[in-house]
């Protein structure tokens, strides 16, 4: 008697006779184990495909010590003018892109909501929004750099598109969750379409919209610090240039500044959120 049958017998249920039934029982008992086994096999396979081995890692750690020693102390002085200018540029790109993104998301969010608009309208809007969201900003950045050349304009366009992708989606979801009863009441008073939106829809979603905007600004700020790596303006360009020249102490200074900027932003946005709640 095999182990499986013994376990089946213990359950006081009739021993399976049909082949299919046997297979089903097998999975019911060993399903989790099989999944785990497959998982481990996959991990080992993936590790070997990527050429990751303990030796590789330990070599890396020795190398890492050397690298760390070359990072410190950070050098803020040598390129300070570039750094200051580019940090500000990152911030400015984030501000403008967030505002443009929010302004565009408002109408797109209303147009994409299936409870307000016919599918002829919502379908293309939703496709555009999911396309804007599917690609990492860096990829959109590469395309815009090719289209409009190096510089902050490419970054600005990139993050505007990314913002539409993100806020647009959240806003559509928020609009689709509203109570249509309130909308119906405003319609019944003979209000124009604009007034229906203004009094029936917006009061129900406006509080959440501010949160989306804040969140998107945080995200845009993070991304605007890296877009320079592909030439789309901001501090990332200076960072990458220093990295390629092996000026690791400058790299370290810039990264510390980025971390500082982001922590500061998180603190501020936490405060602002509290004011609005």
């Amino acid at each position: 008697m095999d182990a499986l049958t013994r376990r089946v017998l213990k359950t006081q249920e009739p021993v399976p006779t049909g082949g299919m039934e046997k297979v089903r029982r097998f999975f019911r008992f060993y399903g989790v184990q099989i999944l785990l086994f497959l998982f481990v096999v996959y991990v080992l396979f993936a590790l070997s495909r990527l050429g990751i081995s303990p030796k590789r890692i330990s070599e890396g750690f020795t190398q890492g010590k050397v690298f760390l020693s070359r990072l410190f102390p950070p050098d803020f002085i040598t390129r300070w003018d570039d750094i200051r200018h580019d940090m500000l540029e990152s911030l400015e790109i984030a501000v403008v892109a967030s505002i443009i993104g929010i302004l565009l998301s408002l109408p797109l969010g209303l147009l994409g909501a299936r409870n307000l608009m016919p599918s002829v309208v919502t379908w293309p809007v939703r496709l555009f929004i999911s396309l804007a969201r599917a690609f990492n900003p860096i990829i959109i950045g590469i395309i815009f750099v090719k289209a409009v050349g190096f510089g902050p304009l490419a970054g600005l366009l990139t993050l505007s598109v990314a913002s539409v992708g993100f806020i647009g989606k959240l806003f559509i979801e928020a609009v689709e969750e509203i109570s249509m009863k309130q909308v119906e009441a405003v319609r019944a008073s003979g209000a124009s379409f604009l007034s229906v939106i203004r009094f029936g829809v917006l009061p129900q979603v406006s509080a959440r919209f501010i949160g989306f905007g804040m969140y998107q600004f945080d995200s845009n700020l993070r991304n605007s610090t890296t877009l320079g790596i592909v030439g789309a303006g901001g501090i990332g360009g200076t960072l990458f240039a220093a990295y390629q020249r092996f000026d690791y102490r400058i790299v370290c200074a810039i990264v510390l500044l980025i971390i500082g900027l982001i922590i500061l932003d998180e603190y501020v946005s936490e405060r602002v959120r509290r004011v609005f709640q």
Partner: protein
Amino acid sequence: MSENLAKEWKNHVGPKRALKTVFYAIIIAALVVSLRNIEIIPEFLKDTPEQLMDLFRRMWPIDVKFLWGFVAPSILETIHIATLGTIATLIITFPLAVLGSKNIVRNEGIRYVMKFIFVASRSVNSLIWALFYVAVFGPGPVAGVMAIMSRSIGFVGKLLSEAIEESSRNQIEAVISVGAPPVSVFLKGFWPQIRPSFLSIALLRWDINIRETAVLGIVGAGGIGLLLESAIDVFHWPGVAAILLSIFVVVLLAEFLVTNLRKKVI
């Protein structure tokens, strides 16, 4: 109430309106200042739609041979990096998250250290993490896995300690009270409470990591990004189209998978 309502209404909306006006004024000021400094060249901006259309036109038809020969293996590598990075994150972060939870560790010092690790991890973009690891491990997927891991620790750690803090003491006490050894207390009292959020956080992060891994190749950390950069460098637009399409499909599939699996987990 002797005042009439019209006056009351004015007093009611007046301050709100003033606040809103100030808010909008600040935003417009920020916009103006920023736009001035960014120095947008109007000719370039006007040209953008045309340039984009031109790019897209050159992308058609997509390069199918390139898709199967180069893009597919590279996409698989991207998925491997994202998955291994996520697994490594989970292994490393679980103990850190436990140490960072208020209801388990009373020592505030330890919790602050954990919080610092999480914040530091999240503040550095994965692309910048990748730069560091490429310098350490040399170009290749190892740097990618490490970068993904370093970036994810903060996200997973923060959410996981929140989930742990929400777990109820009563259920753990019930298991302790029957005299179970610590391992059983963990497995039967603690883990069942954490499992849904753990799996859900893991899936969410995996989804995000798939998107992030797609670009790590640009700085040499493996995956489809490297191919994308070289295809663009040699202006092989039909190949670029193949890459973009495959990224889009993978991202959509990952999102679909995660959404459905999460429903099952919760």
